[in-house]
């Protein structure tokens, strides 16, 4: 695959740098005391035999040096920077928790990614997905017809088991608008019927939408906040048009982070709706008894939970996941560390969609996660994030972990207790 080549535009570089430089960045770039305490917070550093050049402060220093060259940037600088900011950081923000000053290296790297974009240096697949999102309203160029067909198809599938279940589309005034990741209609349509099943059993007043249904936002990982704002606006528009009370985000990490916490900044005002991650909603359903799980289904399995960085550390849902687990698993073991202190799986920050040239580094940096999982002795690793999900499946093969990687929805499909009155009447021919 041809690596993308930088097209050096010093004026644009300077303009972008000046635009992006704010008081916090300037403070952080200047104040780093070079104490080195961030080193072992980083999974890249640990997985690459403690290579000093993988430590967060070193990466931040490289960014600072590149920004200092804003009055005469050269191709070498841009190319070097590219390797560091795209190839050696998932912007998981773990190092910030271990930095005495609280320096946000992820924000520094995100800024640098934006600078790289201004010089045409972006991972090809990431750019493609973002362009597709802006053009087609979703990152995988699913047409409206295909989308609606998929919803209808999933509805029919579901109705075989639950005759009353529907997948409402564009229902104005619904309590919840459910938004997904484009790979669900594209590759994992069952995710949608699994979610519909949960909503039906919980008696939720919900809807999906013909537009603005892809809640992913890969532009965030390009540091391209203008494109990110455009993409977030699609979801916001549809949610506000349908006057829903809340938007429920599918089991996806960066989608929650971008819609709930970043897009109100990009778009200048708060949303007129609440944003809830599936994990939080599921926990709420279980707590209030709207959903009931049969814990014996997974009794023979040993389960662990992979905290997606953008669901736990950057999304605040670590506790909600633990609550679900109490209703779902007899035998649950935590990874160490976990919750907000989890290590990134290596698939975040755009690494999964960046694919090809980044895969080797992704699998290598995942070593830390693989060892964490192995230490739990788990047979099932639950994760409510599409990127973690893909990465864990790859790590499972690469490091021979012998685990099953499952989302909560997938587990619910087996463990949900369906009240008799909602079940389809059994046909006589079945014994």
């Amino acid at each position, binding site marked *: 695959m041809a690596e993308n080549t930088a097209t050096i535009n010093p004026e644009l570089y300077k303009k972008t740098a000046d635009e992006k430089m704010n*008081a916090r960045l300037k403070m952080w770039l200047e104040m780093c005391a070079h104490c080195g305490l961030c080193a072992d917070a980083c999974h890249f550093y640990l997985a690459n035999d403690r290579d000093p050049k993988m430590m967060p402060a070193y990466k931040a220093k490289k960014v600072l040096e590149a920004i200092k060259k804003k009055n005469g940037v050269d191709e070498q600088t841009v190319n070097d920077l590219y390797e560091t900011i795209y190839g050696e950081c998932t912007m998981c923000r773990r190092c910030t928790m271990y930095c005495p000053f609280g320096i946000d290296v992820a924000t520094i790297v995100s800024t640098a990614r934006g600078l790289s974009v201004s010089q045409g240096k972006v991972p090809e697949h990431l750019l493609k997905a973002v362009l597709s999102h802006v053009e087609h309203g979703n990152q995988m160029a699913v047409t409206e017809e295909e989308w609606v067909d998929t919803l209808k198809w999933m509805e029919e599938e579901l109705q075989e088991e639950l005759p009353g279940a529907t997948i409402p589309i564009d229902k104005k005034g619904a309590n919840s608008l459910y938004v997904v990741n484009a790979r669900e209609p594209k590759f994992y349509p069952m995710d949608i019927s699994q979610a519909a099943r949960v909503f039906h059993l919980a008696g939720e007043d919900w809807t999906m939408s013909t537009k603005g249904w892809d809640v992913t936002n890969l532009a965030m990982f390009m540091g391209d906040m203008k494109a990110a704002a455009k993409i977030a606006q699609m979801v916001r528009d549809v949610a506000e048009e349908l006057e829903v009370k809340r938007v429920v985000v599918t089991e996806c990490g960066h989608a929650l982070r971008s819609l709930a916490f970043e897009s109100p900044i990009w778009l200048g005002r708060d949303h007129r709706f609440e944003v809830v991650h599936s994990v939080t909603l599921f926990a709420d359903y279980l707590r209030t008894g709207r959903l009931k799980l049969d814990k014996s289904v997974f009794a023979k399995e040993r389960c662990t939970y992979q905290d997606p960085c953008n669901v736990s550390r950057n999304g605040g849902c670590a506790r909600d996941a633990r609550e679900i687990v109490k209703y779902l698993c007899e035998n649950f073991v935590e990874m160490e560390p976990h919750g907000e202190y989890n290590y990134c799986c290596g698939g975040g920050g755009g690494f999964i969609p960046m694919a090809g040239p980044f895969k080797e580094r992704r699998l290598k940096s995942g070593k830390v996660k693989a060892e964490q999982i192995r230490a739990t002795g788990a047979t099932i690793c639950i994760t409510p994030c599409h990127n973690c999900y893909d990465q864990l499946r790859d790590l499972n093969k690469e490091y021979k972990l012998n685990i099953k990687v499952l989302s909560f929805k997938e587990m619910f499909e087996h463990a949900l207790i369906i009240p008799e009155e909602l079940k389809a009447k059994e046909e006589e021919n079945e014994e």
Partner: protein
Amino acid sequence: MNLYELLRGPLLWLAFGVFIGGMLVRVVLFVGTSLKKDRPIYRFFSWKWLWLSIVHWVLPLNETAKKHPIVTLVGFLFHICLLVTPLFLLAHGVLWYESWGISWWSLTEKVADYMTLIVIGCLLFFVVRRIVSPHVRVVTTAADYVLLAVSVAPFVTGYLAYHQYFDYYTVIVLHMIFGELMLVVIPFTKLSHFLMFFVSRAVTGMEFGRRKAPSW
């Protein structure tokens, strides 16, 4: 006016002026730029997360302290002694009293002497760590060593002056020069973290806090 009097009078005023004025400018610049370009700080402002973030790091109540107990211990000792010794040194107190007629509590000379040695010892630890640990070495710049030297010079000369090693007049003049030099460079270097630490901790604490996540 001899050199001693110059350092004791006008240059000291100048040093304090640059130090305080410089830090004020730093803060004003931060607030000025941030009001335009860092709106989230104000939009998501929260006293709760601001204080939580600061308290967890002003005290060793964070994961880093657990993970790196030795660096944390040395770091705390260094900072405490560095701040407390010059402020509560008896000899400094006498100078304040002579000039302004004000006085406050002082350390005994023996304690101050040990605290000075602690500052020097901790600093040596930092220097060795910078050289020995590959991950610290890789980010270390010449400026880091210069700032360590600037920070320790007043303590070394202060120690020598108290014990009257070498020529007292020369040593005390050097001590004053280094002390004033340190004050002057603070606003223009990483040493400004004595104040910016609180700003950065507040900003990050609130940013994590609005996601209900700790930053410690």
